[in-house]
């Protein structure tokens, strides 16, 4: 869902850039002071993994493809604030080095993927955890659900932005239906990959998965 330059009018792009900059500044301050794990450098590793996963487009329906967004995955692995930074770094590298996603549209892409994608992914994961048994084994499913919903949520956000400041006039219903329809399908792929990756990591290194604290039980006192 990398928005190119020109899709959105300048005022809309500027607004998203301002929102993005503010959120990133907050995220940087939070991760630096809260002590996101340095050893290993989880945020950097997760961002790199998300970049790599975003290069693997998979067929969707007839004639389209999707790729992992990675917002829910990153949030589950390093927490939502660090995940915002991870996705921002990925989008910045993609726009500047690979001409993937506009440079003036970087703020927009950050809002869509690093903010909406991460936030929805995280909160749906959290909500899912409350409905599931309180064990590590629930995390892959919870993360998968978060991931499934994060993608159409970003599509809804894009639809909103385009209806407000898009370069052309399109019917709201038409745009919403197309964007949400395709991105719900893509979300299913996102959910499957996210659940799989979280499953592998939670079974090998649960100590390095941020979301494991959502299911942690208080230490039993040994009599």
């Amino acid at each position, binding site marked *: 869902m990398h928005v*190119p330059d*020109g899709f959105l009018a300048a005022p809309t792009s500027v607004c998203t850039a301002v929102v993005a900059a503010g959120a990133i500044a907050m995220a940087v301050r939070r*991760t630096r002071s809260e002590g*996101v794990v340095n050893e290993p450098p989880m945020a950097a590793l997760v961002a790199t993994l998300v970049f790599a996963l975003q290069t*693997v487009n998979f067929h969707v329906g007839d004639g*389209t493809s999707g790729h992992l967004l990675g917002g829910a995955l990153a949030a589950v692995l390093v927490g939502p604030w660090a995940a915002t930074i991870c996705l921002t*770094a990925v989008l910045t590298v993609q726009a500047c080095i690979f001409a993937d996603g506009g440079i003036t549209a970087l703020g927009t892409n950050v809002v869509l993927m690093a903010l909406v994608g991460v936030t929805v992914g995280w909160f749906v994961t959290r909500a899912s955890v409350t409905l599931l048994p309180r064990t590590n084994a629930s995390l892959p499913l919870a993360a998968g659900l978060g991931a499934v919903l994060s993608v159409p949520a970003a599509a809804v956000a894009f639809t909103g932005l385009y209806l407000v400041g898009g370069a052309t006039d399109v019917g709201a219903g038409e745009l919403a239906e197309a964007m949400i329809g395709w991105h719900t399908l893509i979300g299913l792929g996102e959910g499957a990959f996210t659940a799989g990756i979280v499953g592998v990591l939670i079974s090998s290194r649960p100590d390095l998965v941020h979301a494991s604290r959502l299911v942690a039980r208080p230490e039993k006192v040994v009599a």
Partner: protein
Amino acid sequence: MKGGRHRLFTAGLFVAALVIAACVSQFASGRPDGLEHVAGSLGFAGAADPHAAADGVFADYGVRGWDSPVGSALAGVVGCVATLALTLFLTFRRPSDRTTS
């Protein structure tokens, strides 16, 4: 030893990313992604401006002038390294960042 476990994990995850970006990506679908497809069918694909970095060496995940899977593998590696470096820069906690205890 904790350091050893972490080093193994770090290396493993980074290598996995490199393999995905350099090799698995070779098999990626070439179809337009969801947004491009919608833009095409609803008629706003043409609104996209030419990209400022479109003449860059690695634009479009390849190496300019080198039409080979090795070129796109190299682009994948470059992207991984750049992302790792940028995120380290943004998140690495220095002793001076510690809040007063």
